[in-house]
């Protein structure tokens, strides 16, 4: 790490807990010395290290060794031939962060960076504004690091996601409103209390954690970037960081520049970025979210502008899917590949299907779908939509009758 640098005007700031430029409110980003990193970060060096996201340590923004979440990342890149066949594409992989450690979503990546850095900067209380997964990860990682935590969430979240924060002893504050209102309040709280808000004043460090998903995909493909990567968009941050991750690997000489395309997926009920992308705009109009994909329900996406820029520059596209399409896609992924994704995963698979059907992603190509969260946390969304178990007495005769009935139906 060299400094924090404004993405808009380039002004530099010290490596503290601060996230916007004082002059134009542009986002601050961590600047690295890539020439130096290039000398020590070789494929052999990386491959000799433990299978966690910290094997790319030089490209992540902490000063010392990771102290929070040392085991996060290196989730499976699953080859998905049955889903590929169903979607009509030659080759497909699922990057499965539904089994990330410890809280089953990609947020464990960003939180382990943010909290490791927060400890380096001397914070004792950590906090976040969250649509659920982030709150779970902050709560769990803070607990194991001995930090005090406050997590702020919209009050209408799935029960599973609320319970998954409470269990770790975090202070869970439900806000009567949607995520954008939670976020606005947190920006005000962060200015007032001396806490490390992972996605407010710690955001420059936090957001960099997402790059590790791209590093892993490239390494797991045998050190190359995929032609097409499909990413869910809430704030748009993950999409921009996956792009940055591939670019950095090129910059430090670990992969060739194959011009990977990065596609964005949203729910139709909250689609400010995909709507702008399809209209060919470079700015978005904020919306009031109404979708079952609550983890993606951000109507005023902080990185919407940059996500649009990445899609424009990589000549990619975005699309969105309805609640029914989301549920169907969750089922399709589960039935073809045995992976149970949360609603955001349904959004991403559903949008991949649309992009392939429309020819925006060519059928004769290879793609990676990023699944960022686990279906066990959003059971409410599919409850009543995936059939019912059949009940019988513990009798062989009843079972045979049931099978015979079924054969008749299927005949």
């Amino acid at each position, binding site marked *: 790490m060299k400094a924090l640098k404004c993405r808009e005007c380039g002004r530099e700031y010290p490596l503290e807990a601060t996230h916007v430029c004082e002059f*134009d*409110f*542009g*986002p601050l980003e961590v600047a690295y010395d890539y020439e130096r990193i290039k000398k020590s970060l070789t494929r052999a060096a990386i491959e000799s290290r433990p299978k966690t996201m910290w094997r790319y340590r030089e490209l992540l923004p902490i000063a010392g060794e990771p102290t929070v979440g040392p085991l996060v990342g290196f989730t499976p890149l699953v080859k998905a031939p049955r889903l590929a066949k169903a979607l009509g594409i030659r080759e497909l992989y699922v990057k499965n962060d539904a089994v990330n450690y410890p809280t089953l979503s990609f947020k464990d990546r960003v939180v382990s960076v943010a909290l490791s850095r927060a400890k380096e900067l001397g914070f004792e209380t950590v906090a976040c*504004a969250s649509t659920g997964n982030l709150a779970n990860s902050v709560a769990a990682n803070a607990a194991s690091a001995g930090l005090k935590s406050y997590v702020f969430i919209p009050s209408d979240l799935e029960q599973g996601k609320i319970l998954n924060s409470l269990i770790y002893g975090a202070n869970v504050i439900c806000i009567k409103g949607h995520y954008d209102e939670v976020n*606005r309040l947190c*920006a005000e709280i962060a200015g007032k209390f001396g806490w490390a808000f992972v996605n407010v004043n710690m955001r420059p460090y936090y957001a960099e954690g997402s790059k590790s998903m791209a590093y892993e995909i490239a390494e797991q493909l045998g050190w190359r970037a995929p032609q097409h990567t499909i990413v869910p968009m809430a704030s748009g941050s993950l999409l921009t960081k996956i792009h940055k991750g591939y670019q950095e690997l090129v910059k430090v000489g670990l992969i060739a520049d194959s011009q990977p395309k990065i596609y964005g997926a949203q729910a139709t009920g909250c689609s400010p970025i995909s709507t702008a992308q399809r209209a060919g705009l470079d700015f978005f109009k*904020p919306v009031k979210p109404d979708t079952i994909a609550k983890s993606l329900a*951000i109507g005023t996406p902080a990185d919407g502008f940059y996500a649009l820029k990445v899609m424009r520059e990589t000549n990619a596209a975005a699309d969105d899917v309805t609640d029914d399409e989301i549920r169907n896609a969750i089922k399709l992924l589960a039935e073809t590949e045995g992976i149970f994704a949360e609603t955001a995963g349904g959004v991403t698979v559903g949008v991949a299907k649309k992009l392939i059907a429309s020819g925006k992603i060519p059928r004769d190509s290879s793609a990676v779908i990023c699944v960022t969260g686990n279906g066990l946390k959003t059971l409410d969304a599919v409850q009543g939509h995936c059939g019912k178990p059949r009940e019988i007495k513990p009798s062989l005769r009843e079972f045979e009758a049931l099978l015979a009935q079924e054969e008749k139906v299927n005949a």
Partner: protein
Amino acid sequence: MSKKVRIPTPLRKLTNNEELVEINAATIGEALIELQTRFPGIQERLVDDKGEVRRFVNVYVNEEDIRFLKNRETPLKDGDEISIIPAIAGG
């Protein structure tokens, strides 16, 4: 009674660390001008050279984003509270 503007941390150096500033303006556009008169330099931080509110600045009147109201033309009445919040947060 007048209207109040909540000043975000990055701009408090310009307001002598004042967090809450009272104004009399009748619209958001006028409020920006009034702030500039009292705290020179603050306007260029908030609006670009075309006079539009900067891409990374969100302005709220009583907790509602002005883009859901009438942007710069949004009227202000006595007792209103205006928040200026950096857009880069969350997600």
